[in-house]
């Protein structure tokens, strides 16, 4: 990046607002829709000020109607627009699941590319903010299993802005998961201008030689903490942030696990059917003979995400990750 690039210090939620502002300015075909996103600026203020800036025609407060407005967004996408729909929490997306599963994700395939659905659905995601029931779900695997939609999950302000812009420019539907724990947990220098982070590419957050820890969303910080604690015990961890959950970055995963031969996968979603299993499949398919220990998974449990009085038991923390790191390191 040029040294002349103007930077500003933003939280993740501010970076997300900034991405939408950049895209609203760039193209009149971009419009935002969702519940309380107008005057109220969204339940997390992700659209703060945008309706005032761009008008009610481009930042639409919708009725409480997830299936309806996602369905209508599909119709707008068919007809030349690039809607960015906000679902207040990922746990509230289920009424729209039918529209996403039976239409948004299939329209291109069904019509051999004649009709397409360039739609972004943004959803606050994950647990750890003491939210009520259903507000803390991490059911990304319901969508990575669905052919025809990409699933993205940034962990930092810089990645959030770049990935959201890439998602809005993507010709296909993208589910954009926003880890609530990361919304305001840190600030980072973010370019003021438009830039993209490529969908489908993860990154190395910290290099290391002994154990690979693979995470995304709010679990990246947990993995980094565990890596620091492991360093104190003489274990040098490499931490990967996948950033995109479909399509997974197989090259990033392969390069790292072939180097270390020992892997811990961390996600807050339920273990069974989780995306971690797809990461395991990549390790098995591409790097089986490099493995020095069975891969460990540290995940949420096969229970509903509990009421927040119990969420600390449910969510992986650095202690659980560290235990898994030690196990694979000493295998």
């Amino acid at each position, binding site marked *: 990046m040029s040294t002349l690039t103007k930077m500003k210090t933003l939280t993740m939620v501010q970076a997300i607002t900034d991405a939408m502002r950049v895209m609203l300015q760039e193209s009149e075909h971009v*419009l935002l829709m969702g519940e309380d996103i107008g005057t109220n600026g969204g339940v997390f203020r992700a659209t703060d000020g945008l309706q005032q800036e761009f008008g009610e*025609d481009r930042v639409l407060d*919708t*009725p409480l*109607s997830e*299936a*309806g*407005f*996602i*369905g*209508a*967004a*599909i*119709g*707008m*996408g*068919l*007809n*030349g*627009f690039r*809607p960015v729909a906000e679902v207040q929490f990922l746990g509230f997306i289920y*009424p729209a699941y*039918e*529209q996403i599963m*039976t*239409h948004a994700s299939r*329209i*291109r*395939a*069904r*019509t*051999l*590319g*004649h*009709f*397409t659905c360039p739609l972004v659905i943004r959803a606050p995601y994950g647990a750890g903010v003491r939210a009520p029931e259903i507000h803390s779900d991490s059911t990304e695997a319901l969508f990575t299993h669905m*052919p*025809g939609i*990409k699933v993205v999950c940034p962990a930092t302000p810089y990645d959030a802005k770049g990935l959201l812009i890439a998602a809005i420019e993507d*010709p*296909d539907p993208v589910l954009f998961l926003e880890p609530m724990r990361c919304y305001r947990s840190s600030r980072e220098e973010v370019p003021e201008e438009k830039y993209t982070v490529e969908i*489908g590419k993860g990154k190395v957050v910290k290099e290391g030689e002994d154990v690979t820890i693979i995470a995304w969303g709010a679990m990246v910080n947990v993995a980094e903490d565990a890596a620091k604690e492991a360093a104190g015990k003489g274990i040098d961890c490499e931490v990967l942030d996948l950033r995109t959950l*479909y*399509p997974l970055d*197989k090259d990033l995963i392969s390069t790292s696990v072939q180097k270390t031969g020992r892997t811990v996968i961390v996600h807050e979603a339920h273990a069974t059917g989780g995306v971690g299993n797809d990461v395991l499949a990549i390790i098995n398919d591409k790097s089986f003979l490099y493995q020095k220990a069975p891969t460990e998974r540290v995940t949420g449990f096969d229970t509903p995400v509990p009421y927040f009085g119990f969420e600390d038991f449910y969510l992986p923390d650095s202690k659980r990750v560290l235990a898994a790191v030690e196990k694979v390191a000493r295998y």
Partner: protein
Amino acid sequence: MIEEFQLVQVMDQQGELVQGEYEKDISEDLTRTFYRHLIRIRTFDKKAVSLQRQGRIGTYAPFEGQEASQVGSALALQDKDWLFPSYRDHGATMTFGHSLLHILLFWKGRNEGCVPPEGKNIFTPGIPIATQLPHAVGAAFAEKRKGTRNAAIVYFGDGATSEGDFHEGLNLASVWDAPVVFFNQNNHYAISVPMHKQMKTKTIAQKALAYDIPSVRIDGNDIFAVYFETLKALERARNGDGPTLIESVTWRYGAHTTADDPTKYRDQQESESRRKDNDPVDRLTKFMKHRGWGDEEWMTSVQKECAKEVDLAVEELEAYPAADPSVIFDYVFATPTWTIQEQKDKLLERWRGE
């Protein structure tokens, strides 16, 4: 409520005009166009049922009995309008310009059938019930945002009005004043479930009251009522006056699809007596004969031309290139992801015997 939503008829079952106000709009040309399309879609429908019986296409959803609803509404559209059909509305899509070959391809399990002619906004048949309603609202809203006078029409059945997407679609259209016509064909049965088990209301039109949307209940076997009421609703939409719900009361003579047997859930005597007394094609034929507008010779020639056109489409279908396995991989995303590319390569390797 049934008193408030009296059935609107322009022509009665004997083919007599009962509403003089349309006299000036009804010409010999218009009725001949109606007749030709009614015969065309009925010919297609009968042929398709027979092709299914012979195993030459897959499961098929017949619309026989509903022709006036489909032709009358589709002919009211303008070229740049949007049409969102359900799976029983290919009578409407072919009237609006979808090719017979493509409709047959669809019923033969080929995606190619979902591609409309260039420039025609015909969406794919909605399979999950009522899901197409919000799409039509979105597409219509997009037209409004672009500042055009184009509208969308969306087709659905009586059973669809029990789905959430029906209500969410109507509500959104109402709030956004979307230029959309909700065209309900009430054929009284959702597969096997009769209307009185589907809803307590006696009409579907009354459901629009909750959304402050104008609605009208029309005789769906009266092509004039269908055509003129749809024109009115579309005009309202084009003028920025928002959506309309039309309940077009009709009947399907046959099965829900070729996979079910209607005698299991209803007395088919009802279908036979409706065919005898209230057939949409017969009603128009009677009207034309009263006016001296359709002589036997012309009608026979139309029937022959339609049969020929359908036969030709069947020939094209059967000469159509075989399915290419690449098709299932190449259009999932604009650029295939690595998982899809790997899976494609493996399948093609096996398929080519490499």
